[in-house]
């Protein structure tokens, strides 16, 4: 049990608790704000795992853009802003059962597979901007370009879908 274990455990606890609140909050806006806490905790987890650049991208894109987009969506669809019961459907018990089963199967699988595995975070290459930039533009150029075309297609698709007359 090292310091990294303790820090990761605490951040994971915050992340998990906030994630549970995201799916149980009675208010869409509160759920979006809890999503900020959850994604921020996950960015901290990435920092512990030496993935510095991914952590900052997580903060910029997820917390900065995706959550704001969610809030826009909640406002534009006139989602029930107040404290309402109708946010959850009638199949909550079955959903909880399926979720517990999924997490249980996945958890036991990965625990039995990687019980003694140890991440030596002091000897891994730090994933900072220099390392990841080199990796992307030397070895992953084609997927990078495909991702940019995908973003463009998504942009055009979103505009076409939301415009009233086309």
């Amino acid at each position, binding site marked *: 049990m090292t310091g990294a274990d303790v820090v990761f455990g605490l951040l994971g606890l915050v992340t998990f608790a906030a994630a549970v609140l995201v799916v149980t909050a009675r208010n869409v806006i509160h759920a979006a704000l809890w999503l900020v806490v959850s994604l921020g905790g996950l960015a901290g987890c990435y920092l512990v795992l030496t993935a510095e650049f991914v952590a900052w991208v997580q903060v910029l894109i997820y917390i900065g853009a995706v959550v704001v987009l969610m809030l826009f969506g909640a406002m534009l669809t006139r989602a029930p802003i107040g404290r309402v019961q109708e946010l959850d459907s009638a199949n909550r018990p079955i*959903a909880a059962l399926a979720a517990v089963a999924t997490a249980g199967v996945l958890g036991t699988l990965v625990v039995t597979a990687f019980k003694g595995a140890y991440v030596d975070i002091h000897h891994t290459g730090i994933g900072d901007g220099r390392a990841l930039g080199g990796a992307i533009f030397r070895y*992953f150029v084609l997927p990078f370009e495909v991702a940019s075309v995908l973003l463009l297609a998504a942009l055009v698709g979103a505009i076409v879908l939301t415009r009233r007359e086309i």
Partner: protein
Amino acid sequence: MHLALAVVLSALLFGVGVYGVLARRNAVALLMAVELMLNAANLDLVAFDAYWRDRLHGGQVFALFLVVIAAAEVGVGLAIVLAVFRLRDTSDVDELTELAEHEPAQVADVTG
């Protein structure tokens, strides 16, 4: 640090996302749960990148691509939700039963 911590947290987050997708009725809240599931996959990618000490940083690069795909998914998903809302005046996925083979009997009664 132990790899089990990261992968167990990832499995738990995925389970929470599954619950959210199955239990939520509002389409925007449902998209938030999908985000949680995508982030669970992201955490696994980053953890295994550190575990295997990948010199090309394949795991972290793919985590970045996953962030890009999630952003595209949210953009198009919210556009579809908005289009459906404009057409049907609701973003409740339980009421969008046009494609169901049989009309579900007591779905609308929950609001009661």
